[in-house]
């Protein structure tokens, strides 16, 4: 049986990864990175935000795209969950609704790589009737 991984193994990994990190850090500045916030409140979670977030992290990793994927609260678009807010450096943030894995891939392929917006954007001017 394989030995179960422990903190000692984590230490080994730490020394392996450390050298690679120094190389990466030189070119990285958080403000120049693509930022994605996944809405992760009850409404988001119930609609599959966890799968969307995991997919985004893994797919961006695999494609070697440097991006910061974080969680945020409910943005008020519960009807359109899972929702994500995408900020491409130098551009205003864009909110996408109904982001399942297929949509997430489309956003990576078109919006992030080619800077072409795709369907499913929730307009900034949108507000609920209560706000009037």
């Amino acid at each position: 049986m394989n030995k179960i991984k422990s903190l000692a193994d984590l230490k080994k990994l730490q020394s392996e990864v450390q050298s690679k990190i120094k190389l990466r850090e030189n070119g990285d500045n958080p403000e120049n990175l693509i930022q994605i916030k996944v809405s992760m409140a009850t409404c988001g979670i119930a609609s599959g935000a966890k799968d969307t977030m995991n997919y985004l992290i893994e797919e961006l990793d695999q494609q070697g795209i440097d991006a910061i994927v974080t969680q945020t609260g409910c943005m008020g678009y519960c009807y359109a969950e899972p929702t994500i807010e995408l900020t491409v450096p130098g551009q205003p943030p864009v909110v996408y609704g109904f982001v399942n894995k297929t949509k997430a891939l489309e956003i990576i392929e078109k919006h992030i790589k080619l800077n072409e917006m795709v369907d499913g954007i929730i307009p900034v001017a949108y507000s609920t009737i209560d706000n009037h």
Partner: protein
Amino acid sequence: MKDLSLHILDIVQNSIRAKAKLIGIEITELPKENHLIITITDDGTGMDPEQLRLAIDPFYTSRTTRKVGLGLSLFKQNAEMTGGSFNIESELGKGTKVTAVFGLNHVDRPVMGDLVGTLILLICSSDEIDYVFKHQTPSGKFGFDTREFKQTLENVPLNHPEVRSFLKEMLQENLEQIQITE
């Protein structure tokens, strides 16, 4: 919520919003008593008695983006549906403790689901918040403290892809070892 791991993810979001710095997640399986106990504690802002009374009301929320707050009510309902119980304690400035007891073998108990995925998502997505996790079954117990991970990793971030996949395997193996219930 489809499974218990999503409930945990959801309730922990409350702690994050309450500016908690240390969050405890504890799961205890007691087959003899037919209990599965989930406890989530935090050192966040806490609630005053009036807020605490309203917290389990599905039509109460401290958010302004929407008018319902279903997280705790759904968790409570699911626990009570399996013959279990639900309790929430909170003190302003000290933090909050949520305990849900499920009937372990009850037919209506949701499955545990992707517990490893939930834990990884939580521990790798914030540098400022630390987690202490404990899971106990009749076969043994497993736990971790993210402060230990951070100490071991030094300047390597927890969300580094290689660290992430290492931790995923580590949690998977350890939870399999103690034979956690599905």
